[in-house]
């Protein structure tokens, strides 16, 4: 069972591959893809999705507002 | 009941601005027009009509405050004199490029440079040919009396809003400083935001409501094709002005064999020259352009057909004479007579100039 609590969805075509989100991520979730988008940018993607804690740091620092961040609600017993 | 007052031209501008419901005035002091803002500040219209009056840090700032206010669809104006108007040219080209209505009063003094504080008409080219960079025109009105100083404020606003284009009242130190009897119009209320939208359309930046797209006031367009199209649109607007808005006065022109063309205070002098000439049996008429842009090309061309010579009289080294020549297009001789640097010609010397150019030798 994966331990992920969060996830991100990157608008790949809007992403310019600046990698500011990569260094802002505290859990080393994000990296730039080997592939490029239509504009030729190596876009950001979740390389280690299991680590995502949904902290939204990547979305907050993204200059192109192309990251949507999700965080699962804690399950209450 | 008629309300008559003895006023300076500059004071009449201020009084008329308040009475025609102007929303805002932004200015910077300069001789010989400082009475405009002084009168407004003394009248305190913000307490009565709500009109904003603000002394800016420069003419550059005042014209850009005008830009901001005009972009909100408000009736805003400024006034200055030649050196200050030079500083406003950047703002004026942006205002023309953004298609905003506003009124600018230039009480012209002699130049170039700091020049003199005495009257001149040497800013004609700057006013009617655009003044700043790019292909644009200012609607240019030339008052020849204190009464016209008052009347042209509202006229300038009407034309500015009709065409969404800046309008200039091109006066001079004579008209600005002299005192004459003026009939003042009754106070009009300022228009509400709703009335402005109703009358002029919903283009201004008043806050993007849910029922419309955002309004953007700008003059930038990086696509050359779009920019050429926009320039075509501007030129069509100026052509329409040329067809529909020409204003002029003709005095003793019906039987004239010689014609004087003069505007503003020069026209007042030339009116006397006409009397002097006719007393000597010389049939002289006067055509006084009231709009300098659009220029009264057709009436001048028509009068050229019946005249033996045309003298363009200006307090400049010869600026309007070029437009007179273009209007006449070679069918009769056109000469210029001017005094400048703050010197005002006398009616007699204008008559002498007419004689020496066309009647002697």
């Amino acid at each position: 069972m994966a331990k992920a609590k969060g996830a991100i969805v990157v608008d790949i075509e809007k992403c310019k591959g600046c990698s500011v989100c990569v260094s802002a991520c505290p859990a080393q979730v994000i990296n730039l893809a080997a592939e490029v988008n239509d504009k030729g940018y190596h876009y950001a993607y979740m390389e280690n999705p299991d680590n995502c804690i949904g902290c939204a740091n990547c979305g907050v620092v993204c200059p192109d507002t192309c990251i949507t961040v999700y965080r699962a609600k804690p399950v209450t017993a | 009941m008629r309300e008559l007052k003895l006023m300076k031209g500059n004071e009449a501008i201020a009084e008329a601005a308040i009475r025609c419901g102007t929303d805002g005035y932004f200015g910077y002091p300069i001789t010989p027009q400082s009475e405009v803002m002084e009168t407004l500040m003394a009248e305190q219209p913000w307490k009565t009509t709500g009109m904003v009056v603000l002394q800016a840090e420069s003419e550059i700032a005042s014209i850009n405050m005008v830009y901001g206010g005009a972009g909100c669809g408000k009736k805003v104006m400024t006034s200055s004199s030649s050196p200050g108007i030079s500083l406003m040219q950047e703002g004026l080209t942006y205002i023309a490029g953004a298609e905003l209505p506003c009124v600018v009063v230039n009480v012209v003094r002699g130049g170039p440079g700091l020049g003199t504080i005495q009257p001149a008409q040497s800013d004609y080219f700057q006013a009617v040919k655009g003044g700043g960079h790019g292909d644009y025109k200012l609607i240019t009105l030339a008052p020849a009396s204190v009464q016209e100083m008052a009347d042209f404020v509202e006229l300038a606003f009407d034309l500015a809003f009709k065409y969404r284009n800046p309008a200039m009242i091109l006066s001079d130190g004579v008209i600005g400083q002299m005192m004459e009897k003026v009939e003042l119009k009754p106070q009009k209320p300022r228009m509400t935001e709703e009335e402005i939208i109703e009358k002029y359309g919903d283009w201004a930046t008043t806050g993007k409501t849910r029922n419309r797209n955002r309004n953007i006031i700008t003059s930038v367009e990086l696509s050359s094709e779009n920019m050429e199209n926009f320039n075509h649109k501007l030129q069509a607007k100026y052509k329409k002005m040329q067809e529909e808005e020409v204003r002029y006065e003709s005095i003793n022109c019906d039987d004239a064999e010689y014609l004087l063309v003069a505007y503003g205070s020069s026209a007042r002098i030339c009116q006397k020259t006409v009397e002097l000439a006719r007393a000597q049996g010389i049939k002289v008429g006067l055509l006084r352009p009231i709009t300098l842009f659009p220029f009264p090309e057709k009436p001048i061309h028509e009068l050229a057909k019946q005249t033996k010579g045309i003298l363009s009289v200006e307090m400049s080294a010869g600026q309007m004479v070029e437009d007179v020549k273009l209007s006449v297009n070679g069918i009769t001789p056109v000469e210029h007579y001017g005094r400048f640097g703050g010197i005002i010609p006398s009616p007699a010397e204008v008559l002498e100039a007419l004689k020496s150019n066309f009647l002697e030798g």
Partner: protein
Amino acid sequence: MDIKEIIKEENIVYKKTSVLTDKVMHYCPGCTHGVVHKLVAEVIEEMGLQEKTIGVSPVGCSVFLYDYIDIDWQEAAHGRAPALATGIKRLMPDKVVFTYQGDGDLAAIGTAETIHACNRDENIVVIFINNGIYGMTGGQMAPTTLPGMKASTCPFGREPGQDGHPLKITEIVAQLPGTTFVTRQACHTPAAVRKTKKVLKKAFENQINKRGTSFVEVVATCNSGWKMSPVKANEWMEENMFPFYPLGDIKDI
């Protein structure tokens, strides 16, 4: 938990505000402008100001700011934004008015308009992006270029004796009685971005409460002009810009 279980509408914790348009910004990758645009849009959305806010965009890289934030806009001549904002706010005092200007616009060609608007208690917000270089025209020296910093018009580094000194205009406007809130922030880390958003909100609240001019400087990167990667530019900014342009509130009345 499976990712598909997480990616659901109800789990969204961060997304683009609807006050930002969908247009892809023309800025270089990693440009701070995008972050500050987003923060302004978020503040406008959260404070419910979309219908009453009028922005004034400058000349410089952010000249097309009006393409990105869905409010009414006026685009000013170079440096004149505070004069436009004065005209707008004086005539429409119930609207919310802000300028957004770069260092060349605000601290060189528009110095007089900036200082006098701030000194007149104009009830507006001034947002000042300071990246120490002219981005749009291709990396020329700015009024805020650091001593020794290279630009295309000081290719061997700015030499104060020849090129003049960098101007700390934010410290100057802080001395003016017309300003109520003057602060310098940055957007190089998530925490810094969150702080900048907080001060922007405070600046807009000040305007609603008719408290005079609020002036928010954001020390920013221009990685293209500085010829660095975006991440490296953030590091360079921390090492070189922050010692000269220290972050924090300079005035808060």
